[in-house]
C-alpha cells in the first residue's frame, strides 16, 4: 500500500482515512457515532468527561474532544463524517466546523466560499483578505 498512499501525503492540509488512521481512531470515531442517539447526546452534554470515559480512547484523543480541536482529532484518527456528530451535538453546522479547521473566522470562511471557495491556486489555511 506504500505506493498508493505515498502520493496522497503530498497534498497539503489533507489526511486520508486509511488503515493506519482508522485503527488509531477506532474508539474516537465510535464515540462520535454514539452521539446519533439522543439519550447519548444528553449524557454527553450533562457530563462530557464521564461520557468520554466510557470509550477506551487515548488521553490526547479525550482532550482533543473536550477542546473541540477537530484538526487534532483528525490527526489522531478521527474521520470528519464521524466527528460531524460531535458538531451536530453542539448545534454547529458543517460550515462552522470547516471554519474552525481552517483557523478562519466563520464570516471570513463564509465569504471565501461565496467568492468561489478555495481555488486550486490558493494556499491552505487562513486566506489573506
Amino acid at each position, binding site marked *: 500500500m506504500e505506493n498508493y498512499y505515498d502520493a496522497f501525503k503530498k*497534498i497539503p492540509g489533507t489526511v486520508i482515512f486509511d488503515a493506519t488512521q482508522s485503527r488509531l481512531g477506532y474508539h474516537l470515531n465510535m464515540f462520535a457515532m454514539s452521539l446519533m442517539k439522543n439519550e447519548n447526546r444528553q449524557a454527553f452534554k450533562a457530563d462530557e468527561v464521564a461520557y468520554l470515559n466510557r470509550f477506551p480512547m487515548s488521553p490526547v484523543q479525550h482532550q482533543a474532544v473536550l477542546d473541540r480541536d477537530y484538526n487534532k482529532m483528525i490527526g489522531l484518527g478521527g474521520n470528519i463524517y464521524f466527528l460531524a456528530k460531535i458538531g451536530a451535538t453542539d448545534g454547529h453546522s458543517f460550515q462552522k466546523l470547516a471554519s474552525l479547521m481552517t483557523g478562519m473566522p466563520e464570516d471570513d470562511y463564509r465569504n471565501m466560499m461565496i467568492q468561489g*471557495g478555495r481555488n486550486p491556486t490558493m494556499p491552505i489555511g487562513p486566506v489573506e483578505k
Partner: protein
Amino acid sequence: MAKIIAGVATSHIPAVGAALDLGKTEEPYWQPVFKGYEKAKEWFKETKPDAIILIYNDHASAFSLEMIPTFAIGCADQFAPADEGWGPRPVPVVHGYPELAWHIAQSTILDEFDMTIINKMDVDHGLTVPLSLMFGQPTEWPCKVIPLAVNVVQYPPPTGNRCYNLGKAIQRAVESFESNERIVIMGTGGMSHQLQGPRAGFINSAFDKAFLDGLTQDPDALAKISHLTYVQEAGSEGIELVMWLIMRGALNQDLKEVHRHYHVPASNTAVGHIILENV
C-alpha cells in the same frame, strides 16, 4: 423487461437539507442553489418513473467501523431517515422495492460483483437530500427507491472503473427484470469539496465542469480518473464523484443532456446537477 430511462446526478449537501427543512430556500444565499432544481422537479412530474435506484454514500450513519461494505444494496421494504446528531430529518420514510433490489443483488453477484445485501438500514442526508431536491416536501415520496451505498469514507473506496462497471452490471440486471417499469438511476455526492483540515473549502470549478462535460462526451476517460486525482483536483470529499460513474455506467452510450446546473457554494461545496436521458 424493465428499462433505465435516464440518469440524474446531484450533490447531496446536508446544509441543503437543513435549508429546505427550515424554510430558507428563498433566502438570497440559497435561492440560486434551489433555482437550478426547478427543472428536475418538472422533469420528474412528467417522467413519473416507477422507481429510483439511488447511488449514495453513507456518512458514518448506518455503517460504523465495525463493518464497512464496499457496495451495499438496500433490499428492505422501507428505510427510515437517520438521526445524524440533530434528530432525523422531517421527511417521509423511504419505501423500497425489495423485488427489484433483490433481483439486482442476485444478478450483480452472479455477474461477479461482491455486493453486501442489506435488509435493515437507516438512510442519511446522502439519500434524503437528493429526494428533497427532486420532490420538495411531500408527505410521501412519489415512487419506490432502492438505496445503493458505496464506501467513500474508509480508504480505499472502489476505483472509478469498478464503479463504472457496476453501473453496466446494474443496467443488465434491470433489463432482465420482468416488468415494463421505467427506472431512473441517480448518482449523488460531489462535486468538488473538502470538509476536513486546513484545506477545507477547496473548490475546483474547472474540474467540475470538465467532469460534467465528460459524462456525455467521454465517460470512459472519467472512469480512469484515479483516487489521487480526485483528492488533488476535487478535494478530499470530491472522491464522492465515483458514485456518478455508477449512474453513468448504467446508461446507454448515447445520451441527451436535458439539464445542467452548477453553483458555488452551498455551505462548503460546489453544487452540481445534471439530467441525462437515454436516446
